[in-house]
């Protein structure tokens, strides 16, 4: 098995797996605020002076642009069709000071991309990472092929969970499969919608206990984001939280998380 990796390393032009500056945002379960978190994290990183790109990797149900109220001229659909390069498909989001690559909203047409296209997309994205300080990939929910493909190049995977047992269980499933695939994976947990910091800690401890006991792994805590009505408002009004309510609890927590992430 290990020879395969050696083989891959030796095989020319194979894009190196895993770049430290690529952050994949994952969640086993849907509805835990993954896209909101991806957007806010990208925004926070750009506020910290980093050149950042947000890639909508939820190929089946892309919605990053919707949440930002953007009408991108170009999206991944055109990249897949070979009309534009991946680098040429970025849309500048001036208000947030970062770039995005939008999916094809509301069509689901990219959900079943063939492997060759997926691989190409992943390699192009890894190449594109050289032009940015950070790339944030908003993954789809679950653990399907698309999710696996875009998790592969990420240096760090941030697994978003809430305190709901279903969410914890699904986050655990993602962690387990990721560790099985790559025991050295850098996986970190984000607790979203926590009642309080202490409650968030408890959620993390619950997940950590299961990982330690069943997997022998201790994923670290990336951060806790407190439940905040301002988040719902920002999503409804299609205005990013860090623009609309920069002093809110959730905004504060996300900035802190981004700072911790860039500190190493």
């Amino acid at each position, binding site marked *: 098995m290990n020879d*395969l990796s050696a*083989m891959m390393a030796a*095989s020319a032009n194979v894009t190196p797996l895993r770049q430290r500056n690529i952050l994949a945002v994952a969640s086993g379960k849907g509805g835990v605020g993954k896209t909101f978190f991806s957007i806010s994290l990208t925004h926070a990183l750009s506020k910290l002076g980093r050149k950042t790109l947000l890639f909508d990797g939820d190929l089946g149900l892309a919605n990053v642009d919707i949440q930002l109220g953007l009408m991108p001229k170009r999206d991944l659909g055109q990249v897949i069709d070979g009309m534009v390069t991946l680098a040429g498909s970025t849309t500048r989001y001036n208000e947030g000071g970062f770039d995005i690559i939008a999916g094809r909203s509301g069509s689901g047409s990219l959900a079943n991309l063939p492997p060759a296209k997926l691989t*190409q997309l992943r390699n192009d994205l890894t190449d594109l990472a050289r032009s940015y300080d950070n790339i944030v990939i908003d993954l789809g929910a679950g653990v399907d092929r698309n999710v696996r*493909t875009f998790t592969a190049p990420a240096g760090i995977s941030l697994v978003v969970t809430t305190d709901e047992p279903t969410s914890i269980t699904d986050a655990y*499933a993602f962690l387990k*499969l990721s560790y099985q*695939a790559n025991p050295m994976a850098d996986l970190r947990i984000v607790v979203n919608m926590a009642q309080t910091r202490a409650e968030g800690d408890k959620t993390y401890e619950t*997940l950590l206990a*299961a990982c330690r006991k069943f997997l022998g792994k201790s994923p670290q805590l990336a951060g806790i984001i407190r439940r905040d009505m301002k988040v719902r408002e920002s999503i409804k009004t299609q205005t990013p939280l860090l623009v609309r309510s920069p002093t809110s609890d959730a905004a504060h927590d996300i900035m802190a998380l981004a700072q911790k992430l860039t500190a190493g």
Partner: protein
Amino acid sequence: MRLKSFHAPSMQEAMRLVREVLGDDAIIVATREEEGVGVRVTAAIEEDEGMLATHAPVAAPNPLRFLEPEGPEPIDVVADALLRHGVPAELNQRLVDSLEDFDTRDPMMAMAAALDAVFSFQPLPDGKAPRPFMLVGPPGGGKTLTVAKLCARCALQKRPVGVISTDTIRAGGIEQLQAFTRVLKLRLITVEDPTALSDAVEVSRGMEQVLVDSAGRNPYNAQDMKDLREFVTATDIEPVLVMPAGLDPVEAVEIAKAFRAVGARRLLATRMDMARRYGSLLAAAHEAGLAFADVSATTKVADGLTALTPTILAKMMMPELQAEQRRAKQTGTHA
């Protein structure tokens, strides 16, 4: 993993409930005091099949293959290689799609399987051939050298072989082939028109193989192709397209289609050693419906030709992997 919370008046009672419901293997992942009610204990138990069953798509993936264990999936390695070779997107897709149900950890085998599924392989016979072969193609593709190689192959096996050339216009065309036939002690028959070709083929009956070298033709020139067609139809003969590697894929497809139109059904690829991207050959064979015959990867006449199989082509397309696997074999490790 299954997660379950238990409410009880005391910790002891809660633990008893946990064991009763989840058994001795359960672990406590969280406990909390509940104001005036007692305690809430959250316990977890790991049951592999259950979890995978709930998360797996219809075709349950082997969890060990999740997230590309120690490097990409074989299918991705194949897709990568095809991209590197400049295989047009549609054909790339077709090749990768053919691996849908193919289960192997070896990218080389996957590549060979994909090539086998999409292409046909019909190397030129080593021994007796039912019809003469006429090597056709654009100028400078290596027809004459290929004829020499085929002659040498027969001569080395002491098989009687007939050599004919229609390449009488090009300066030095005949002389080039003659240099080889002289060494091989073969008589080279030169013909200038289709009737003469028909006669020459007739004279060569009884030979195990008859090889005809032809003048390079411009596939975009109607008169050129018409002339060639007259040679091909003058007698019962199989035209074989000789095309070098390294052309532009779109160009290669058009060239292949033009020679397919005058009867070529096989593609013999030359200059494999002078190119690193074989996308044009794959595209040409696929689009024009040609079978892969042999390939030539050297200018040395005696080293001749390699009969192409899916495995050999796969190895030629992934030389680094091939070298790596060979080393692994020598050191006795297995990928």
